[in-house]
């Protein structure tokens, strides 16, 4: 198992290098340069040239890339073109917020999703199955900003229970987590249901029942553990999605997370921030995927021996 984990970690390094190269060259290739984006329309070209020179944006791309990689190894991710603050500071301010939302959202959607999925599988084609499937789907089918705004209108305006902007107390986190969690709920419930339906008809389930194992154990231990593989994949995907994908929810609830930071950095072509943010998110995502793969091996022995 450890050998397998180390192998996966080592595989990460070439990927990060490849990603850093792709990101570095891709964002410089998109039209719109950071300085004119920052200076805005109608600014004399001399200012733009001067600033580009100061930031070294006119040097050949290769030189810029090498300088950037050298800085990284010295632990300096560079300065944000827009806020002139070190990128590390900008990210350290936003990462905990996004991680909280991502973890919270994933936990809510997976815990509820699995429970609902199992119940739906047990009562296939009956009332509860249809009820769970349609309710859990409702939230998935709604555009996220539409759903987020609905929440805000109901809980913040009509009922006045919850504050709707910022994230400086648990009460503030309720709606964003509800928005992020519920969108994953439908996906998790459906994945669990479909995996459970496959497993329930297996012979070993009948064997367990023939040994007098209580039904609850047969379902929640024997059957569920066997359907863990698709479920874990879904959780990994869900967490990854939330990492960079919550820009819309963060914008609606004015929460300064990585999602919004990415959107702003892209819109303002803030290269240093963009590169660092993508690398940080990619690293977290790859680590999560590695953990998911390791869990595969832990859950299903057959895979480990592959």
């Amino acid at each position: 198992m450890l050998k397998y984990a180390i192998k996966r970690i080592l595989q990460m390094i070439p990927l990060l290098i490849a990603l850093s190269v792709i990101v570095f060259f891709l964002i410089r290739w998109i039209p719109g340069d950071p300085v004119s984006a920052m200076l805005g329309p109608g600014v004399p070209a001399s200012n733009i040239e001067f600033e580009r020179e100061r930031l070294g944006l006119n040097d050949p791309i290769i030189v810029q890339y090498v300088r950037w990689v050298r800085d990284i190894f010295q632990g300096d991710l560079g300065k944000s073109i827009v806020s002139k603050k070190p990128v590390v500071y900008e990210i350290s301010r936003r990462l905990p917020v996004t991680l909280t939302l991502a973890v919270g959202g994933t936990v809510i959607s997976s815990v509820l999703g699995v429970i609902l999925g199992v119940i739906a599988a047990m009562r296939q084609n009956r009332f509860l199955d249809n009820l769970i499937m349609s309710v859990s789907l409702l939230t998935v089918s709604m555009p996220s900003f539409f759903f987020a705004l609905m929440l805000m209108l109901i809980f913040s305006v009509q009922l006045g229970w919850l504050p709707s902007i910022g994230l400086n107390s648990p009460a503030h986190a309720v709606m964003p987590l509800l928005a992020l969690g519920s969108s994953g709920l439908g996906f998790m419930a459906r994945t669990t249901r479909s995996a459970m339906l496959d497993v329930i008809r297996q012979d070993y389930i009948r064997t367990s029942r023939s040994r007098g194992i209580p039904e609850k154990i047969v379902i929640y231990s024997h059957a569920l553990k066997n359907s863990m593989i698709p479920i874990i994949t879904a959780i990994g995907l869900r967490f990854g999605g939330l990492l960079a994908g919550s820009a819309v929810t963060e914008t609606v609830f004015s929460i300064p997370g990585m999602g919004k930071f990415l959107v702003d950095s892209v819109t303002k072509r803030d290269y240093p921030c963009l590169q660092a943010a993508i690398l940080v998110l990619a690293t977290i995502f790859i680590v999560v995927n590695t953990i998911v793969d390791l869990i595969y091996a832990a859950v299903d022995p057959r895979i480990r021996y592959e």
Partner: protein
Amino acid sequence: MIKVFLKRFAKKKLSVVAFFVLMFFIFIALFGPRLCKYDPLDQDLRNIYAGISREHWLGTDNLGRDTLTRLVYGARVSLGISFSGVLSGCMIGILLGVCAGYFGKWVDTVICRLIDVMLAFPGLLLAIVISAVLGNGVKNTALAVSIFSVPSIARMVRSVVLGIKNQEYIQACQIVGESNSRVIFTHVIPNAMSQIIVNTTLNLGSAILTASSLSFLGMGVQPPDPEWGTMLNNAMTVIRTSPIGVVMPGICITLVVLSFSLLGDGLRDALDPKLKNV
């Protein structure tokens, strides 16, 4: 065989309803435009945000255009994007997923890492790159949508194939000497079919959401062509004063996405080879 499939599919009432809802929308997308009496681009600046009235059954939008007509024309655009985008993305996704899961070793590693990169890459940046390189418009939105749907399908299919791969009947085929491609297409894919269907229908639904967020960022369908996502975004600003403008596209998007998922469920239960004896 079809009779059995239809009878079992009929059992899941919700999926039947979903099927008819989708047929209704596809009908609208194909034949709707002939039935509308307005042109979706006709503006009437005198009565903008007009409420429901006899001439405008669903009121008008911020430029006085008839919402109902734009919904009908928008159906064609939105459904077109999601079908073409997702189906192409799904093909690529299945291929990648199967190869990764089935062949394993270095093929698996390369494809997995590729998927990781695609997933790690924020969708938004991908969208901007595509629109910057190819320009905006319907075609490129479909391309963006298909690229978005590849990673999730590929990863799902891989995990299913991993599960199926070491079942006896797959090894049996290999022993008999069947070529890999035959094994994959006759045995592996049909068995992964239930997961693929579930995922494709989900992606078909989320494709519409992706298209709408793309147009939200100004990179999707170019104004003034009607598209559900753009209509929803524009109407969001007046959600409190004339909610009809938001409610209708919102309902259409939600209904279609919901129907896709329920249809997927129904298909999954009806088509799944193992469920024959149920």
